[in-house]
């Protein structure tokens, strides 16, 4: 059970993501942005951070890194991919997921323990949750506002591809101005998931608001073991 974690110049949470994989029973494999080589991993995590300094647009330059030349076709072919925060931005820039992430509507960087509702518990990364389950994990971003045109938003909702939604505050606001309170989405096949909050910071007693992040990693480990058993 090998899960690759990509390091781009400016990635911050690659070590935490690798540690979360290990904590949950998987083997983390480092993947380098400059190598178009996925090293035979069973799944890939694009971690948080500020790849290429977030220059141009968040994730825009990372999209064209050599590792993405290997990753994009693999993801289109069914390889499970999780994009966390900057990784989510890379996935939208790569057109593996629809929409885009723009600057928070209130213009401030956010760092909070965030309540989310899991809406789709059938993806490769969420099968250990239950639909409707509420989880609390860390959210930290400056450009986390999910936007897409109305038709795309309707399609995402209609096809059950909104995986996570922010629990809005008393005023009905979410932490970054995301349309329809969307925190994370998946592709049609359910193997590619992107979200702004950080499950890898909520896997270990004493660190983070909960252990709710573990479900992401245990889901993918189980699914990979099952698909290996069925192969």
């Amino acid at each position, binding site marked *: 059970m090998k899960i690759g974690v990509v390091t781009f110049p400016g990635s911050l949470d690659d070590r935490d993501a690798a540690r979360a994989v290990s904590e949950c029973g998987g083997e983390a494999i480092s993947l380098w942005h400059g190598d178009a080589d996925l090293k035979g991993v069973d799944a890939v995590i694009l971690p948080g951070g500020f790849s290429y300094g977030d220059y*141009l647009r968040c994730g825009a330059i990372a999209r064209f890194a050599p590792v993405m030349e290997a990753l994009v076709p693999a993801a289109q072919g069914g390889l499970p991919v999780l994009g966390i925060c900057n990784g989510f931005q890379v996935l939208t820039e790569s057109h593996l997921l*629809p929409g*885009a992430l*723009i600057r928070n509507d209130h*213009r401030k960087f956010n760092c909070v323990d965030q309540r989310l509702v899991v809406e789709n518990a059938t993806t490769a990364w969420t099968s250990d949750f239950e639909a409707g389950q509420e989880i609390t994990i860390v959210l930290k971003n400056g450009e986390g506002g999910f*936007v897409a*045109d109305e038709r795309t938003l309707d399609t995402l909702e209609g096809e059950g591809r909104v995986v996570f939604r922010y629990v809005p505050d008393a005023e009905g606001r979410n932490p970054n101005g995301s349309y329809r309170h969307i925190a994370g989405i998946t592709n049609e096949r359910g193997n590619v998931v992107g979200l702004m909050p950080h499950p890898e910071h909520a896997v270990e007693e004493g660190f983070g608001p909960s252990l709710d992040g573990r479900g992401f990693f245990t889901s993918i480990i189980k699914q990979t073991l099952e698909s290996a058993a069925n192969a």
Partner: protein
Amino acid sequence: MGSIVVDVMLKPEILDPQGQAVGGALPRLGFNGFTDVRQGKRFVLTVEGDVTDAHLDAAREAAETLLSNPVIEDVVSVRALDESGSDGGDEQDDEQDDAQ
């Protein structure tokens, strides 16, 4: 040595928090006549020799693939700078308008 200017703007329907921040600062400096501010990006691509149609074609392709994200942004124009280094401003009528 010639140059090509690419202008990119957020689509009108996309919220522009940076433009809003600038718009909020203007009245504090006494500029009261502006009802809205939208902030965009300008890229200047320099080539060896004169700008050719091939350069412009490549610049348009780069504008659509890397310089802009078509989900949230429009390529407003892709055009050659004239020899004086000015892009012609308001007087330029042969501007290449690549708005989609």
